[in-house]
Every structure is written in C-alpha cells, then in structure tokens.
C-alpha cells in the first residue's frame, strides 16, 4: 500500500473475487502485451513524508527568495504583503479540494466567490462584464486577440511596445495558430508613440493593445491613444496592474473594450511565476464572446437566491469546435485569494494602498535619479515602477547589489536591446523608506565602483572586481 491508498491484501482478494478475476494483471490485459511495461519506471523509490520534506526544503534553500533579499524586482509580478486571512481561507478544504462547480447545489460557496470576484474586477476596471478568471496575464492578452478576431472578423493586431514582452510574445505564439498578424508600435519618452500608433491602425485592425502602467512603468494616456482604434472600429484592449486602480483612471472610463491583466499582486504569492490568475473584463457587447467561466445569479425552486455557471453555451464542453475558447479552468483558488485580499483592503484601504505606492515610487525614483551615474530613462508619470539608466553595466551593478542583499530591479536589456543600460525598479508596500535609501546607497556604490571611481561608501566590503 502506498501512503495514499488503502486496499489491504484482504480487500484486494474480495474485490478481485467480485470482479471475477484472479489478479489485477488480468484487468491490464486490454493493454496489448508489447505496450505493457515489463520493468519499473526509472525513478527513485518512494520516500517517507519527512524525507520528502527535507529533500524539498533543501532545494528551496538553494533559492534566494524575497525573505533573504530585499526585492525591488517587478516586471509583472510583485512582492506584496499577503494578509494572513488569505492563507487561512484559501487553505480550507472546502475551497482547496473541490472540482469546478458542475453541481451548483453543493458548490454555492465557490460560485458565490466567483460572483463576488466578478463584481470586484468589474469595479476595478470600470467595465460591466468580468469572467471568473483565466490562467494568468500574458495568455489573457492572447485570449483577447481571439475574442477581437471573432468580434471584428479581422486579423491584424496593433501592439504597443510598452505591453509586457511576455504578453507580446504569447500573443504572437497564439496568432500563428489562429492566423493573425501582429504589428508593433514603438515607445517615445517612455510612452507609446501616439503618431506611430495612429499611423499603424487601419480598417483591417481587429484590436489595439496597450498596457498602463506600461512595462517601463509609465502611466499611458489611454484615452488619447485609443482614439485611433475607435476611428477604425478596432477593439481597444488595455492590460493593467490591479494594484494601481485605486488611484488611476480605470480602463473602462478611458474607452477600453477589454481590460485585463496579471492578477498576482492581489493576494497571490510570487511562487516563481505561478500559479496566479488573469482577470478579463469587457463591455456588455462582448458578453457572449467572453473566454472562461462566468458565475450568474438565479433562484432555486423554493425561490432562494443561488448561483450557477452562466452562459455555458460559449464553452468548449458544449460548443466544442465553435467554442469562444478552449479554457476550462478559472484559477478559482487564486481568484478567491484576490477576493479576500480586496475585501481585507476594502474601499478605503485599496485607495490608500494605491496612493502609498505612488508616493513611495515617486520618492524612490527621485532618490535614485539623484545618485551619480544614474538617471531617469523616461519622465512620464509612474505609479509603482519606474525605469532608470545606469552609466555602468547593469548586470554587474545588479550583482554588486545582490551581494549586499538587495535585488535592485529588472535589467531591461533582457528584452529591450535599446535599453541595454536600463533598470526597472518596482515598489510595493513592503519596501520601506529605509530600504529605498539602502538601495540608493548600494546602487551608487556599485555604479561608482563599476565606473572605476573610489567607492562612495567606504564601509562597503567588496574589494573584488574594482575597475
């Protein structure tokens, strides 16, 4: 018996007798003999629970996480504080272990959470229709492309270079399949080049994709940029960061047809990139083209309020090859975590957190830009992340900061060759003023050292690699 099975030899004998076979091997005879494995898998023997724990703890210990290093890295996922009640609620068996709510009478808890989540996302984005969640951010962008094609019968996407590089690449991957063309529009002063965008959009354009704040942290003038889309009957798709919508104008009030994004900042841990969830909101007009699960309100036979999965004929299990999407997961547990986090923040707390992020971000931006050898990459308004230029090799500066226990940011050169000297710095409510000041000092020392100057901070202990 394995740890998780319970058929004793006596059980097995009784069960085999009831089936009318002598051994389980007879049951596997339907597998043609040459296809039956005749030796064990080449995997280790099973381990005790304690051994598995130690083995995985040892692997975990070889990672440098945000408890060991002060994390100024963002680029789509952020080191926010997740309130204790999120873990307590999301770890309850009743939320952790059920399947998708196919039997609504015994799934009211999960369905109502979806309904509450949809309400919250609709409020955040300023759009009336929300689904119950998609896999994560970039694939949600690709899903918006599929919707836009169905809605407009066109096959051309115009994409801002400020859209997350992973989103752009995922959209391209999907577009090869469903046969669409992706045209990119560059940035100017950190913001999407409005002239280039207007020139790129035409009557064949299915959708225009923007991100605000964009990958460089700039808050985009979505409404103005969106005019070109409106003029040509293309959908305006806006990716956004849900932690900024307490203060920033929601996409729905700026003409977006679809607002979506990576949901991780709400109640979800970093987890080296997942699982998290994608949110996806749209105008009323797109409700029957939405991807994913949607919970709806109704009554039971006694007139009692209840919730069910609504508009299921959109979905693969009914419409098969004509479905609006192939997805059947809603990242329900991750969406629950987001909902609990949002309820915990509440209306005022959510706004205050947004304000806190803006103020600390602006402080950090000014503080760091004052460091010799460091300047702003752009001067557009920012909300929680900003881009710098370093007068020193970014990787080496990052390495020096890492040695002082600081993950100073994301090197833009990884995806933007034009910003080889660029560093993207993210702020969360966990990043205190003292930590920001430490970062300024570490960055200053690292840049100075790399520029061959005498270290600014004489207490710095990094004699190696001078010059």
């Amino acid at each position, binding site marked *: 018996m394995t740890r998780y099975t319970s058929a004793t030899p006596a059980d097995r004998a009784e069960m085999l007798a009831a089936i009318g076979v002598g051994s389980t091997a007879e049951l596997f005879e*339907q597998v043609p003999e040459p296809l039956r494995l005749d030796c064990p898998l080449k995997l280790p023997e099973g381990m005790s629970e304690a051994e*598995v724990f130690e083995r995985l703890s040892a692997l975990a210990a070889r*990672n440098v996480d945000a408890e060991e290093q002060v994390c100024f890295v963002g680029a789509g996922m952020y080191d926010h504080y997740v309130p204790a009640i999120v873990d307590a609620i999301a770890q309850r068996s009743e*939320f952790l272990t059920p399947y998708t709510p196919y039997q609504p009478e015994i799934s009211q808890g999960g369905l109502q959470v979806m309904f509450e989540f949809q309400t919250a996302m609709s409020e955040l984005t300023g759009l009336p229709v929300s689904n119950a969640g998609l896999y994560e951010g970039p694939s949600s962008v690709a899903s918006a492309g599929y919707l836009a094609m169905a809605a407009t019968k066109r096959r051309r996407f115009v994409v801002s270079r400020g859209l997350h590089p992973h989103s752009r690449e995922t959209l391209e991957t999907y577009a090869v399949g469903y046969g669409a063309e992706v045209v990119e529009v560059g940035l100017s002063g950190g913001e999407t080049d409005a002239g280039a965008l207007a020139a790129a959009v035409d009557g064949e354009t299915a959708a225009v994709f923007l991100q605000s704040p964009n990958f460089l942290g700039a808050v985009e003038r979505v409404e103005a940029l969106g005019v070109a889309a409106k003029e040509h009957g293309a959908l305006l798709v806006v990716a956004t960061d849900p932690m900024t919508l307490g203060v920033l104008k929601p996409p729905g009030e700026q003409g977006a047809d679809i607002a979506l994004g990576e949901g991780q900042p709400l109640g979800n841990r970093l987890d080296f990139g997942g699982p998290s969830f994608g949110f996806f909101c749209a105008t009323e007009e797109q409700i029957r083209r939405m991807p994913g699960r949607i919970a709806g309100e109704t009554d039971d*036979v006694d007139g009692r309020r209840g919730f069910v999965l609504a508009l299921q004929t959109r979905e*693969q299990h009914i419409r098969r090859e004509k479905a609006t999407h192939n997805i059947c997961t809603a990242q329900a547990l991750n969406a629950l975590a987001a909902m609990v986090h949002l309820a915990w923040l509440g209306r005022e707390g959510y706004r205050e957190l947004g304000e806190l992020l803006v103020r600390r971000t602006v402080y950090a931006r000014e503080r760091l830009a004052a460091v010799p050898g460091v300047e702003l990459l752009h001067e557009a308004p920012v909300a929680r992340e900003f881009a710098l230029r370093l007068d020193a090799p970014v990787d080496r500066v990052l390495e020096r900061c890492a040695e002082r226990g600081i993950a100073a940011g994301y090197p833009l050169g990884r995806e933007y060759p034009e910003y080889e000297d660029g560093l993207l710095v993210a702020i969360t409510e966990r990043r205190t003023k003292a930590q920001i000041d430490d970062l300024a000092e570490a960055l200053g020392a690292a840049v100075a050292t790399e520029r061959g100057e005498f270290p600014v901070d004489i207490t710095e202990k990094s004699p190696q690699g001078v010059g």
Partner: protein
Amino acid sequence: MQRERAQTIYEKSKPGRRAATLPAAEVPEPPLEELIPAELLRDEPPRLPEVAEPEIVRHYNKLSRRNFDLDSGFYPLGSCTMKHNPRLNERVAALPGHARLHPAQDPKRAQGALELMWLLQESLSEICGLPHVSLQPSAGSHGELAGLLLTRAFHADRGEERTKVLAPDTSHGTNPASVTMAGYEAVKVATNERGGVEMDDLRAKIGEGPDQVACLMLTNPNTLGLFDENIAEIAGLIHEAGGTLYYDGANLNAVMGQSRPGDMGFDIVHVNLHKSFSQPHGGGGPGAGPIAVSERIEPYLPRPQVVRRDGDNGHGPFFDLDLERPKSIGRLRGFQGNFGVFVRSYAYILSLGADGLAEASETAVLNANYLKARLAEGRAGERLPVAFNRHCMHEFVLSGKPMKRELGLATLDLAKRLLDFGFHPPTVYFPLLVEEALMIEPTETETKESLDAFADAIERILAEAEDDPGVAKQAPYTTPVRRLDEVKATRKPVIRQPL
C-alpha cells in the same frame, strides 16, 4: 450546510468599516495630482466592500460550508481524477524559498527551483516514455493548444501546411475547441462496438487527404475508460500519413508505471498535474498541463526551456533557462509556468516513487472494476447497464437509458438525489455517445468501504424510485439550495452584484 438567503460581501458592507491597516508612507505626501496628471486619476475609488476582519472571516467560512469537497466525501467525477490531495504538498509549496521566489530571479540564485523543474521534467519524461518535457502550459487545454502549435511548427519546418485534426466522437470538448484556436479544422472519427476508434472510419478520414492530416488527438484509455487495443495500428496509420499523434493525458492515472504513451507511438502528451499528480483542484484551478514530446518535436518546444548544463572546473551542474531556441513556437504564457503546482507534483512523485506510482494506477483500475462489478448487481445492473461490457481501466460509463424508460428517472435526477446521500455525483451526460451517460472514476485513494457505500446508495435510490420516482425528480432536499433556475441565469444574466 446551512440554509439561509445568500448575502454577498458587498451586502455586508458599511461605510467606515475596514480590515486593513497599512504602513505609514514615511515619505513626502503631496497631493496625488502633483505626481500624476489629474486626468489620469480616478474620481472615485471602486466600490469594494467595507467590512472588518472578523466579518470577512465569518463570511468566507460560511461560504466554504456551502461547498462539497473532496476532503468531505467520495467524489467519483469521471475524467477528473479526484484523488486525495496530500497536505505535505501544501507545506512544501509554502516554503519561502518557493513561495517568495521572484520569477525574474537570476538563475544562479534560483538553482533549487530550476533543479526541481528539471527533475520534474525528467520524471514526467520517464512516466510518459518520451524524451523531452516542457512544463510551461498552465492546464490540459493549454497543453492541447501547445501540442497543436507544435504540430503546425513541425509541418511548417518541412514546408508542409496541413489543415485537419482528427479526434474521436468521444473526445473531451477541449480537443475540438483547441483545434479551432490553433487554426485547424476538427474532424470526428467514429467509435467501434468495443468503445475504441472505428478503424474503417479512421482509414476513410485519412484517405480523404492524407497530406491534409496534421494530427490525431486521442485519449487512451479513452473517455469510456477503455484502452484502445488498436493503438499501434492507429499510430502507424497517422505516422504513415505524416501526421502527429497527440495524447490527451486526462486519463494518465490509469497507466502510470503500467504503460507509456511514448511506447504507444504518441508524439505529444499533456499531463494534468491536477489529476494524476495530486495538485488540488481548488474549485476550478489552478492546475498545470506540462507536455512531453518525441525527439522530432523537441526543436519547437516553447521557450524558455529548463536545461541542465554541465559545470566546469569541477563545479556541479548548472540549471538554466534556455531562451535561445530558434525554432521554438515561442511563449505560451508569462515566466516559467505554474511553479507552485510543480512543487506539489514533484513532492507527490517523490512520495510514491516508481513502485508507488505503478501501484496507484493498479489500484485505480482495481477500484473502478470493483465498483463496476458492484453496480452490475441488483437494481443498478438492470437499470444502469454499463455502456461497453468489458473490463475497464480507471473509469467506466453507465447508461441511464433503461432507468429513464422504466422509472422515468433521468440521469440528472439520480445525480441530484446522490447529493442527499452525501456523494458527489459522477460526470453526467458525457461522453455524448452514450445516452443518459454516467461516467464514474473512483480513483485509487478511496477505500472499499466508500465504494460499497456508493453502490448501496445507488441501489437505495433506484428502490425508492420504484415506489415513487417523484422523490428523485425533485431532489436534492438537504443542500444549501435546491435545483436552480439555469434558464433565468442565462436569459438575463446577472453576473455581478448591483451596487
């Protein structure tokens, strides 16, 4: 489970209440308009609920009690593999080294995570019998899309453009939906009297244009819980036509350590880590759908790919993210995949080991056949005959057609009445091929006692229906709500709380 009018968290809101306290700003606090142009600022904050922490906790605890879950009872939902979710896996996934690791961390400071991913890739490769694995797809359907995009890239690289993807009429709805998303035409293949692929129909569909066949998508054992004995011949036909063979791994729980998709001739396999590898279903996600592929498909795998590089100068191996993949189909999502799911599934594989995985599948098959035997007795045997009468693998399908004809009880009624007996019903009305279908997958983690209790409940429901079919037709009675008006919910959808 309590029965009171459902109130959303928004209806419990009162202005001025709150749960969160935030850190002080510590930095200058000018008006926001001085930092961001006023026209880019929001006029009013979103109307999130205003509730203190004690009420939030009560609210969601109350909601939780309006759910049925795997930890509370038997959940024989066919095709979903509702096996036990070990709590050890939750503990290791929550270690800060996993949970608070930023996905953009420099690989040299994420060696443990990358090694874990590499080890999981190696394990899944061995279990599937295919040499290469990408962990990136986020779910089974995402893996399907990946597999079809890989197929497209594979053919394009040979200067071919093919248009059709075949799948049996018993296939999961995700298969044809993925086919369309990947820009192909879905073509149905008929099922034979043994529940497998109808070979003549397959030959005919290929014969219509072998050079147009891009792929055949198959689940084996199939959605009837039956292993297709002709798999070697099927693989031969598809490969001869130049197509790829795709394995929908939804039913992998039947064959771990017993038989391998790669050995059956499949080129691409997706693995549902939330089914066979114990990731909790979470009420509908998260999961993960890694794919294993043959040598000829490898060049096109999504990027980044986790690789193991030999260390130099006596250093150990280095685990890295390989972004330089010129023939890759590209990314399917952000960062590296659902790492938290990888941690849980790898913990599960370590816990069971080679023998344990084989035994899990063996026991899953034993449990399914035992329950099938129990349900062949008595009233169930008469009213709910098995759709294909042969030994099954990990699941089986019954037909409620005689029950409906003789007792006036639809499969849906039986399913709803099971709720009153404390069981989650099987999957109903799937596969479409079987009238009034009930698809039952007990999994290996259920005891014989659970299986007996379930069979006894079905017997009691049928006996009760012989006296008065009205009881089941109005069921359930004991749940937080009773049958819901789905027509109303879809005619005039109310999908958010009015505020």
